[in-house]
């Protein structure tokens, strides 16, 4: 069976969930061969093997942390040359898309970004995408070269599928461009202890209606009662009430959880773009005409300062 390269997103060897989802999708198209780069690369092997990687190609060098994007493109290109895969799958993060694009250009291949599903087809992998703020679903495929496809988080279930996961060293020669953009400082994000926004099963978001940074504690309390991640509209982020990393929407994160709860959010097209594919949508808004109600499975017309705390209380009581 043909091999499929999967680019591994990991933090010091801890594999992030979207990569495990990619392994599920990769198995539909071929045999997953993972490529893990940078500090802790070899430590990813156990988790990758557990989820279906037949091989794990690893390489560590300081360039991966010290320079932007290009060293990773060089490595992935080396992996493609070593393996001649049927496709290359990359997690659809901002960086993942940039790596994938440059790789595709070098390979003379087509690229599809932000796939939400992938299946085998007669003429290569067929990717499902959600476009125009998720109002259309398209099916596309790469018609030239080795398909390079980036896949959004939450596009497939993580499945255990034990495989050999044999670790092999990847030989990488960095290109002249590799050291073009220096990373002169890096401040890691502080962990909030809550689930990762794009990976969470439940997301609880607040918008302009929350009316102040201090009031976000109401949204956080609801999130914590459900074990959820916290999101925010751009209006709330622009007002400085919540960090931009939590923004949901076109220019923030795109989320597709089992449950999305929007409080004090009107439902502008750019916000919808980032949450419209959520399985169940719930909204609390005092304006019965707010467009968000067009999307909901359950909506409460009311003041979030009454409804949200009451909901949190009730959840706590029910959970005991």
């Amino acid at each position: 069976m043909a091999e499929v390269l999967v680019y591994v997103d990991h933090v010091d060897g801890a594999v992030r969930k979207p990569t495990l989802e990619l392994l599920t999708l990769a198995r539909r198209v071929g045999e997953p061969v993972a490529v893990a780069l940078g500090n802790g690369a070899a430590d990813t092997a156990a988790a990758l093997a557990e989820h279906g990687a037949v091989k794990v190609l690893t390489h560590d060098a300081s360039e991966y942390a010290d320079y932007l994007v290009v060293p990773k493109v060089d490595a992935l290109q080396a992996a493609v040359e070593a393996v001649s895969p049927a496709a290359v799958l990359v997690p659809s993060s901002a960086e993942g898309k940039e790596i994938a694009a440059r790789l595709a250009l070098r390979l003379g291949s087509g690229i599809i970004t932000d796939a939400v599903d992938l299946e085998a087809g007669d003429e290569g992998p067929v990717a499902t995408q959600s476009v125009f703020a998720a109002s259309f679903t398209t099916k596309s495929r790469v018609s030239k070269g080795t398909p390079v496809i980036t896949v959004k988080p939450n596009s497939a279930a993580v499945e255990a599928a034990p495989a050999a996961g044999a670790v092999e060293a990847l030989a990488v020669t960095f290109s002249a461009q590799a050291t073009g953009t220096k990373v002169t400082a890096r401040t890691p994000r502080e962990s909030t202890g809550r689930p990762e926004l794009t990976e969470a099963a439940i997301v609880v978001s607040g918008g302009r209606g929350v009316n102040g940074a201090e009031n976000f504690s109401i949204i956080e309390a609801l999130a914590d009662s459900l074990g959820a991640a916290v999101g925010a509209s751009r209006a709330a982020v622009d007002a400085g009430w919540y960090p931009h990393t939590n923004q949901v929407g076109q220019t923030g994160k795109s989320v597709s959880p089992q449950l999305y709860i929007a409080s004090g959010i009107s439902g502008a097209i750019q916000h919808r773009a980032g949450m419209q594919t959520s399985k169940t949508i719930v909204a609390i808004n005092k304006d019965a005409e707010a467009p968000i109600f067009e999307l909901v499975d359950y909506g409460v017309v009311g003041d979030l300062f009454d409804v949200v705390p009451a909901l949190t209380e009730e959840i706590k009581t029910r959970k005991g």
Partner: protein
Amino acid sequence: MSLRIVVTVKYVPDATGDRHFADDLTVDRDDVDGLLSELDEYAVEQALQISENSDDDVEITVLTVGPEDAKDALRKALSMGADKAIHVEDDDLHGTDALGTSLVLAKAIEKAGYDLVISGMASTDGTMGVVPALLAERLGVPQVTLLSEVSVEDGTVKGRRDGDAASEQLEASLPAVVSVTDQSGEARYPSFKGIMAAKKKPVESWDLSDLDIEAEEVGLEGAYTVVDAATERPARTAGTIVKDEGEGGKQLAEFLASQKFI
């Protein structure tokens, strides 16, 4: 010293309009009003600020690849304060994908001459966010992308990139390709004076032959990907909406429990 900035701007269908596909499964650009992609206004704004903060002689060229109407996007950028514009227009460009677009832009940027390219973070229709990286790859210059803060001094571009795992400070020598996010600072509105001045600013038109690009390299024929189907997402089935009369929180909890979320 002089600094030549090329800002790439895209003319896109209005996101608040009823966007859809044409019969050949390309984005329908006829039925929905178009405009300068809002995310590219941030690129124009940063170019203007770099110019205002510089002792150098800065020239800002805005560049678009798109149909006849894409001139509107150039006009808007010129009225914000850019100096001149280039419009690459050719019937053979219809249906060009990101790889093809980056080819046309790269050739045009080289022909125009540049020290710094500034792009938006993503187009609001395609939303791929890959063209800036592709431009850097094609031009063989550093990519300093997705910046929420940018500055240029002594032939060096610096900026802050807020990523998922960390916030990074980046640095590269010019020439370089930069892209800026919507966190980089509100874009200015064109002033009346700006709008009047824009009418006299030069707009050059180039076609594929001006850029030594063959028709087969671009357009639907030249595309590296094929869209086989596009279906409108079924409208969500109407949900239950209740008015809070003191029991809203409880009712919602009941719903969540019925869906096994609690």
